[in-house]
């Protein structure tokens, strides 16, 4: 694939992924993940002086998300029980993905950075905005075009103004 074809293909993959999430098609969303996936969201904190650049917690430290394929699948199953009260009724989300940048190519695998802005409305007037960055490792797949082998999600918030992280990124 040319650079343009690759970029277009990844964009299409992300757009479809967002649609699955916004339309509550979580099983379809899961199909985009490799069985060995690590889905990880470290914690951001405020640092100054010589600690600037050390805002994120590291592997082995506490994180917002640290999931593998099994736990990610279980999170989806929880939503499908009908008794996941934080999502009963389900929130209405709008996942907007942009600034898709192919950072590295390693053979057929890609490292891709993208930005997200997610709006969530819940119940009557609860509303939340999540903004941040995703860094993915992707491999080509015949069925789903791409599979996510690794997803790191950097949320911009140090103190979350959202009542919980019950959605997917």
């Amino acid at each position, binding site marked *: 694939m040319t650079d343009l074809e690759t970029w277009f293909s990844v964009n299409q993959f992300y757009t479809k992924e967002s649609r699955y999430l916004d339309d509550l098609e979580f099983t379809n969303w899961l199909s985009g993940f490799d069985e060995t996936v690590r889905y990880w969201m470290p914690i951001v904190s405020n640092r100054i002086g010589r600690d600037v650049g050390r805002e994120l917690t590291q592997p082995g430290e506490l*994180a917002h998300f*640290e*999931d593998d394929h099994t736990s990610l699948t279980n*999170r989806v*199953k*929880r939503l499908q029980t009908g008794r996941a*009260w934080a999502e009963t009724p389900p929130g209405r989300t709008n996942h907007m993905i942009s600034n898709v940048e192919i950072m590295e190519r390693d053979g057929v695998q890609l490292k891709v950075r993208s930005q997200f802005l997610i709006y969530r409305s819940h119940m009557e007037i609860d509303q939340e905005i999540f903004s941040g960055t995703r860094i993915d490792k992707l491999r080509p797949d015949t069925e789903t075009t791409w599979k996510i082998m690794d997803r790191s999600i950097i949320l911009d918030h140090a*103190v*979350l*103004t959202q009542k919980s992280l019950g959605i997917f990124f």
Partner: protein
Amino acid sequence: MVDTNTRHFQHLVDISKGEINREMFSDPDIYQQELKQIFARCWLFLGHVSQLPNENDFFTAYMGEDPVIVTRHSDGQLGAFLNMCRHRGNRVCRADSGNQRLFTCPFHGWTFANSGHLKTVPGYKQVYHEKLDMEAHGLIPVARIDDYKGMIFATFDENAPALDEYLGDMAWYLDMAIDRREGGIEFLPGTHKWRIKCNWKFPVDNFIGDSYHGPVSHGSAWEVGFEGMPRRKKGYGYEGFQINAGNGHGFGVRWAENEDQIYEMALPEFLSYEEERFPETHARLGDLRGMHLSPMHGSIFPNFSILWQSGNMRVWHPRGVGETEGWSWCFVDKKATPEHRDLVRVHDLQRHGTSGTWEQDDVDNWVQSTLSSRGYVGRQVKQNLSMGVEHEISDPKSIHPDMRGRIAGFQNEINQRQLYAQWARMMDGAAPNVSGANV
């Protein structure tokens, strides 16, 4: 001195019936009184010594709505100070943690040492004409700071009882989390911090004694594989105890008749570690604390909570009458193997804290409870805490001779009743340790 005979707030809490007035969850005036009578007078949890391993390490925290800097001075001593410049009141530290000897206010440059002393003021000679009293303008220190086996607490009240006295029997029970192995515990780096539109008392109430909500609120998480600890077996739910340790502190336990039952309750992935640590815990803490009691959930008055075996501790910072900021940490035994640390961390964060499959559903419960306290008609309706009101266990020593405090069956709202009783006493001006274990 506040007149303790006015009993202004006692009428909001009827312990004998198990009824409380919902206005305490929605009235802004009551909230202001809480900041004064509770948050400015209690010992409040700030963090763990493992967060300050080196000289000049610091982290920032809150005591009520007051921001503080918690420091380890050059001489190794712990200190805590209002994060507030004595000039215009700006925060002198904008970082959540780090290592610094000096804090310089970003506004005009007043610079304070991590011992609180005001060290330099720009233009001290030229514009203050050397008239500013440097000694009198240090950062405002807390009245007292102390740690119990590494757990750092501070109070703004110089008349507060000693920390040991404040914690009372709860300290002895807390050993089951923090002193079960040599070296105690440590906090993993990283703090979940998030805002919940609920009154701060609802999560404290939930953690101190609400073992009733589990099967309903957390059924979805449980069912799909996010099992809890200690593990629930078929028929589970009613055996165990709620233990009230006095002074508004309490927790819930499952009961293990013998060593084997501890392993029966263990999650499969934790089993080998339970077997490894049990002999040491038993030797350190004895039969009651080292074997029979498998603690699950608890709160220390006013706003600290713990999930014992999930390795989770948290503080509920008040943010106005209708909002709370949760700070949640993961703790592990210092002697835990790297493999066990990984298991605890993942277990904890997949269930508790920001993305926790249990926590998410709790959060919405607390929000709903808060909302229902806002309507004029709704808030006239009493909140019901009557479960097991006449079924406390009259002789705790009959359960085990070492038992302390008041106890009731596992499904009993004794701890919530005592939480609000302590709340009312302190709101009326009483000292935090007047209740003892048996009021």
